[in-house]
């Protein structure tokens, strides 16, 4: 037993489950225990692969028993700073994110075996005020932190993690600050917002820049951090930026500009119809993204995200049914041009007359499926590794312990 024993929190979500599964199939890792307060959905369970699942709430002191009993040396807190949806779950989000993190840190502090701690943080720690610089580096300090809300939570969580670092200087702490996560699988407040159909409400006169990171890049970076020895905070985002209205347009939706004071009322009215409804706070929290400087990620951590912001977004858009299809718009353009007797301009992004290189990026395929990666080895396949590895002990906390069947195949191969 020379390898690592890893505890991953939040394995009902995409990031936690995919990471746990990926770590479990790695030869350097002896054992992966995924914990969550709820049972994972079948899809998450399939992603877990060889990882064990223990149903344990991180807000419960029982988590420290799990850490002790299994001899965990690496804790990946993948559920910290997860953004929840819905308007009523604001206190729930705080409960899970802030208090959950506090409890988990308390458990880690008790356990002498813990050597590595990786906490998922978010770009929300940089806040969002008009007095802030356009691009945040790791040293940027938020100008004004609201007294409540996701920004406050993210800052608090980082504060507790730093406090833990002072009390346990022997533990390596890595804290990646992720931009808004997006992809074809993950469900976040942003993906739900952009899935509104056919109109997406936006605050009139506001248009924020957003920066995204692809779900597969998030998992890959967390995996990279588990194996590596990086300690500290690092910004993680796909190259480039978009604006929110651009994102809505690119998703084939129609942005509806609603004056800020009316936003709450419209949202409440929309909640009466199925598949609608949002809160003004939710929209506000979606527009707090900051653009991050990722030089440190590339140079010091040695990780380059495979997806740019626009690339990640287009990969997500593949799963949506567009209201305003790009091809239909192009068709209309050609028809109008023909009716006017004018030759239409060639399709695609605008080219600056002075520069031969295109200003816009070529649009990724809208099919949404990623090409299978030829580099993926057989060892990554849970079916293949399941037969060679020793059978794992079931870990039970409250009788609900489950282990995913060894023969399950993960849905599709993710780009790595």
């Amino acid at each position, binding site marked *: 037993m020379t390898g690592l024993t890893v505890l991953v929190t939040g394995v009902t979500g995409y990031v936690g489950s995919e990471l746990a599964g990926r770590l479990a199939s790695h030869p350097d890792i002896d054992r992966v225990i995924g914990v969550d307060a709820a049972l994972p959905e079948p899809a998450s369970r399939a992603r877990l692969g060889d990882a064990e699942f223990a149903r344990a709430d991180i807000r419960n002191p029982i988590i420290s028993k799990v850490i002790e009993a299994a001899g965990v040396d690496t804790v990946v807190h993948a559920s910290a700073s997860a953004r929840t949806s819905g308007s009523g779950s604001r206190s729930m989000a705080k409960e899970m994110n802030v208090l959950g993190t506090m409890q988990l840190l308390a458990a880690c502090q008790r356990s002498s075996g813990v050597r590595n701690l990786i906490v998922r943080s978010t770009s929300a720690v940089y806040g969002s005020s*008009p007095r*802030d610089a*356009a691009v945040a580096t790791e040293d940027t300090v938020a100008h004004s932190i609201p007294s409540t809300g996701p920004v406050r939570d993210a800052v608090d969580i980082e504060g507790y993690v730093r406090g833990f670092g002072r009390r346990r200087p022997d533990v390596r702490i890595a804290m990646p600050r992720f931009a808004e996560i997006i992809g074809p699988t993950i469900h976040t407040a942003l993906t739900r917002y952009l899935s509104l159909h056919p109109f997406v409400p936006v605050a009139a006169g506001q248009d924020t820049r957003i*920066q995204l990171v692809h779900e597969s890049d998030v998992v890959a970076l967390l995996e990279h951090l588990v194996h590596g020895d990086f300690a500290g905070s690092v910004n993680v985002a796909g190259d480039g*930026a*978009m604006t929110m209205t651009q994102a809505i347009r690119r998703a084939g939706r129609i942005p509806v500009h609603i004056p800020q004071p009316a936003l709450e009322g419209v949202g409440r009215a929309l909640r009466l119809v199925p598949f609608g409804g949002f809160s003004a706070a939710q929209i506000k929290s979606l527009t707090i993204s900051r653009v991050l400087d990722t030089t440190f990620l590339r140079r010091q951590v040695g990780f380059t995200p495979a997806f740019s912001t626009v690339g990640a977004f287009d990969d997500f858009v593949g799963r949506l049914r567009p209201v305003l299809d790009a091809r239909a718009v192009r068709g209309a353009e050609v028809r109008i041009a023909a009716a006017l007797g004018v030759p239409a*301009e060639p399709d695609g992004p605008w*080219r600056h*007359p002075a520069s031969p290189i295109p200003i*816009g990026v070529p649009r990724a395929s809208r099919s949404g499926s990623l090409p299978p990666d030829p580099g993926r080895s057989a060892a990554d396949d849970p079916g293949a590794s399941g037969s060679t590895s020793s059978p794992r002990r079931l870990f039970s906390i409250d009788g609900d312990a489950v282990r995913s069947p060894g023969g399950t195949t993960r849905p599709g191969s993710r780009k790595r």
Partner: protein
Amino acid sequence: MTTSEERARRGSPADGGPSGPDAPSDLPGGEAGWKRSVAGSLAFLRRRLTGEYKIDEFGYDPDFTEHVVLPPLRVLYEKWFRVQTMSLENVPSTGGALLVANHSGTVPVDALMMGLAVHDHHPANRVLRMLGADLVFDTPVLGPLARRAGVTLACNEDAERLLSSGEAVSVFPEGFKGIGKPFSQRYRLQRFGRGGFVSAAISSGVPIIPCSIVGAEEIYPMLADVKPLARALGLPYFPVTPTFPLLGPLGAVPLPSKWLIEFGEPIPTDHLPDGAAEDPMVVFNLADQVRETIQQSLYRLLLRRGHPFLD
């Protein structure tokens, strides 16, 4: 040296409108112009509807700026203010450069005109990235619009990031003290802030180009400042001009003054020793030098212009 002849000679993007060099050119002579601009507008509309454009990390959207922001400004530049540029060759064709200019006119039209001058009349057609006050980004509609047009917050982080990535940046160190000064103080440079622009230029090692703008002072002559109203509205000043608020919306029409923009000799900063950006003495001296240069050339240009409204 000036506007329309030069444009006709070079065939600047203004004529071609939104169309690129790959636009069909087999159209009959006279019709080609409007047909191309209709096709260009349709294509622009399509790109807007499908989100097929790219912004940089500061929010600059070249497609939007070229097709929506610049065309109306060009009319103002050529027909209304008859802007004349001088010594534009002092702006380098490549690499970072910090253009420092005087600020005036109640509404910061001068920043836009200077940007257009460099964009349309500089041989390299450089895009001038402006630095704006936080009030701009705090304002609905205006904030996102400014970001699309390439403006970013006037802070050292943003300035240095732009300069070290080789952009030409314009800054107006007088800020609100400059544009909000009464008409009686016209062409008298105000205090130059804390000299942050100098330290940004030094730490990026880019030259400072002192620019003098004559003509902006007369567009909205500010006769009085209603301070209580400004405070109530959260504005730095509330102007009273001969036409505003007397004529209501008509007061938004600027007076057609004659403009001159001179780009001064670049002041190099890359020869300064390391740590000069943190040396207040160096920074203040350089800021004073820039300020003095601009003030002197303002007086010179004023003499040269003669009557503010007649050519």
